[in-house]
């Protein structure tokens, strides 16, 4: 049985939320952190909150953001699993392509689905398309018999609904309750997470 593994990025593969990290570059850390928390708690929809957060951070040059993102802490156990199975692992992130592309390509090294930025040179203009994570899973259906999804937030719900196995992972913070309700497994430790993934290889 051919299995695809789909990982959320922020707070799942990364041990820090990326947008609050970027916001330290401009003096908007508190504001972005608050918006991020409200989104994680499912109090405001990801789409709106993400567009707003991008707007707030759009004054920072894309290359500056990429440099910050490149330093983000990753969960080594998950990264090792992805490296060992890179042809069947996918990052499925609501984050912007121009911000996370380099991180994924150079450090995580697998294929990805992300939101798309509207930009001109090094200047971010806005969000062209916010990724519907369920659509990413649907796309992978053609190539795989089984899809395993790993995530922690509200915007992972559509991915879990379309996947065969959902693992709510509380590596950085508690997974939101709505996602837990759509999951088969819940765990807070990345070695335990990998132990489950190995069973579905």
């Amino acid at each position: 049985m051919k299995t695809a593994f789909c990982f959320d990025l922020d707070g799942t593969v990364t041990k820090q939320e990326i947008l609050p990290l970027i916001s330290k570059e401009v003096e908007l850390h508190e504001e972005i952190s608050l918006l991020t928390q409200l989104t994680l708690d499912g109090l405001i929809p990801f789409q709106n909150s993400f567009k707003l957060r991008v707007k707030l951070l759009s004054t920072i040059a894309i290359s500056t953001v990429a440099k910050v993102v490149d330093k983000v802490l990753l969960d080594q156990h998950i990264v090792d699993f992805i490296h060992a199975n890179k042809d069947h692992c996918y990052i499925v992130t609501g984050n912007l392509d121009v911000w996370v592309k380099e991180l994924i390509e150079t450090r995580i090294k697998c294929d990805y689905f992300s939101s798309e930025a509207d930009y001109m040179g090094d200047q971010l203009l806005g969000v062209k398309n916010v990724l519907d994570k369920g659509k990413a899973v649907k796309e992978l259906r053609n190539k795989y018999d089984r899809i395993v999804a790993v995530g922690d937030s509200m915007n992972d719900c559509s991915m879990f609904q379309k996947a065969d196995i959902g693992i709510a992972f509380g590596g950085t913070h508690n997974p939101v309750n709505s996602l837990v309700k759509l999951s088969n497994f819940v765990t807070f430790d990345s070695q335990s997470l990998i132990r489950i993934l190995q069973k579905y290889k």
Partner: protein
Amino acid sequence: MKVKNAVICAAGLGSRLGLDTPKCLVKLGKHRLIYYLLDILKDVENVRIVVGFKEEEVIEYVKNIREDVVFVRNPDYSSTTNSYSLYLGSHDLNEPFVTIDGDMIIDEKNFKIFVDAIDVNEDLIAITKAKTEDAVFAKIDENDFITEFSREPISKYEWSGVAYFANFKMSKSGQYIYQEIEPNLPLKSVLMECWEIDTPGDLDLVMNEVSHIF
């Protein structure tokens, strides 16, 4: 530790106990029941707990005791049995595992008796002196092999709810765990003392007989 995997089934309502809380969260002494189970399983690498009724409370309590537990969800806990929970918790393991009901109390000494009796490639069923109201009695031959299960009092021992499964898989549609074991009989057994909390009477009994644990 020769036991690598353990599956605790703690999804049920525990309606006979009559508390609005999962049985594994019943307070016994300083801690809640599942604390003591996790304590005897502390050297087991992979511990899975099947959760259902008030799962968020179980998850919240357990993760503060042992962060690396894997919770397996049984959203249909109110219309399914322990056997189905054990299927969910074990069907993808492909490795031997110990199963324990999430409403049991076992002390370290008795769990050691069980673990010492395990031969890693063979199934082992723990039996205990029959004492529960709806016991599943286990007939034992001269070599300590279980030859038969029955709801009728055919022996002074009952199926305890603790077992080591090395060679067979739970089916998805099983009614009771002992019925899943049945086609594989005869199987080796080991006698140990353990307590199950099904009714308020059981709770009193445990508080009196096993207070040394708490």
